[in-house]
């Protein structure tokens, strides 16, 4: 019996095994890479409400709720409450309607009884009366219908108003908190960045002030800058300009929500004054 001893088949097996491993390994590696680099767009969801002009004055708000730190949840809760209230009101209307119908039926019954009693005595009169009563009942029903309609309309209006109020409240909240608080902090961040890169020239004197206007992209790249108000000292102006140029890219700007960026930071003004200088 001859046992196969040639190396060709095992060698082929081995080489194919290694190439398979290699392909798997490299393939997997690429897959990992792909998974790792999802680009996350910032703040896509929450900004739509904000884009409405802020200038629109807030109408009389039914009741100002205490704004806590979670306006979205608040809004959601409000909406839920409104929904509930609306449902309740509708149920009430339904009940009223039913009651009216019941009353009408009872009246009809009573009326019939009366009619039977008085049928012999004054048929014509009774008929007239009955007609009148019928008319009255109809009128009543109509009235109820009208009342219901007006109520519904009112409710719809109120709901609309409430939604509006909520939106405005939210907008107000966002603009209030973000615009005033966050804008401040963003501003401070930018100023800090510039200050780190600012070397005050020896010719700087107290009272000098130079204002720069900087145009930025949402990525934080400075596209252009110009001096709006010169300090009178070209060296000081140049130092200020240089400080902004040296920053080149404000990475902090990427954290700013787009609406606030558009409002306050696309064109941003730095004011340099050597206040903290001794000389």
């Amino acid at each position, binding site marked *: *019996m001859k046992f196969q001893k040639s*190396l060709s088949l095992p*060698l082929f097996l*081995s*080489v194919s*095994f*290694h190439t398979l491993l290699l392909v798997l390994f490299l393939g997997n590696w690429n897959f990992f890479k792909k998974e790792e680099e999802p680009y996350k767009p910032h703040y896509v969801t929450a900004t739509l409400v904000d884009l409405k002009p802020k200038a629109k004055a807030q109408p009389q708000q039914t009741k100002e709720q205490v704004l806590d730190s979670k306006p979205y949840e608040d809004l959601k809760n409000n909406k839920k409450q409104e929904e509930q209230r609306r449902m309740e009101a509708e149920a009430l209307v339904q009940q009223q309607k039913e009651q009216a119908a019941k009353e009408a039926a009872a009246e009809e019954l009573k009326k019939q009884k009366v009619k039977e009693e008085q049928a012999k005595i004054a048929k014509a009169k009774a008929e007239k009366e009955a007609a009148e009563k019928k008319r009255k009942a109809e009128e009543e029903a109509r009235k109820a219908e009208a009342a219901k309609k007006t109520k519904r309309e009112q409710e719809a209006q109120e709901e609309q108003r409430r939604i509006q109020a909520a939106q405005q409240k939210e907008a107000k909240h966002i603009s209030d908190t973000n615009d005033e608080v966050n804008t401040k902090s963003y501003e401070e961040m930018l100023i800090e960045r510039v200050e780190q890169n600012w070397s005050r020239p020896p010719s700087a004197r107290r009272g000098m002030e130079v204002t720069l206007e900087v145009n930025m992209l949402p990525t934080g790249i400075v596209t252009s800058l110009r001096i709006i108000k010169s300090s009178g000292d070209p060296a000081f102006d140049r130092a200020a300009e240089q400080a902004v140029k040296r920053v080149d890219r404000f990475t902090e700007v990427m954290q700013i929500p787009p609406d606030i960026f558009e409002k306050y930071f696309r064109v941003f003004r730095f004011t340099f004054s050597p206040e903290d200088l001794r000389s």
Partner: protein
Amino acid sequence: MPATENNLSIAHLILNASFLVQVVMLILVMASVISWAMIFQRERYQRKASGAFSYFEKQFWSGIDLNQLYRQSNGRNEMVEGIESIFRAGFKEFTRLRQTAGADSDAVMEGSMRAMRVALAREQEKLEENLPFLASVASVSPYIGLFGTVWGIMVSFLNIANAGQPSLATVAPGIAEALIATAMGLFAAIPAVLAYNKFSARAESLLSNYQTFAEEFSAILHRQVHSK
């Protein structure tokens, strides 16, 4: 900078490695390929040998006439291997010595046993063929990989020193590249160790089976010699 980071895959690292590290990697890949080829070959050979052994033993103990068994394998013109070659060597020597006049029974027994011992030694050699290579791959390839790593790290540190601005971004690729060599060394060594252990154990057990068979066969021959 982010673009280069994204390009930093293992293939990229290997292609950009320094020459010596690449040579080390090539050696390790070759060692791995060859050792795997040997693993496949050994697996096949030993499986066949043990299959043949159990088949032949069954035949041998089935009460078949030994002459017939001998002639049966004569009919095939292939080379005889495994247990059968031991049987044939012993039986051939036995019949030859019996036919020569004046040979006493002890000489006959001794001659046939010697013939079987020789055949056994040949079989052992065949069973354990290539195992030394696996053993040396198992023990040496981690060192080769380590050498590549040390060299790669040395080179990358020298580069950093020359660049003068050490940062993680400049240090990391060189070290990663160097570490691939160690990974490859381990990759070659681990299967080789496992295969070596497995195959040497199996060869040993087969050999002891052969030896037992040779002893039993010589007992039968002994009985034949002395029964007359």
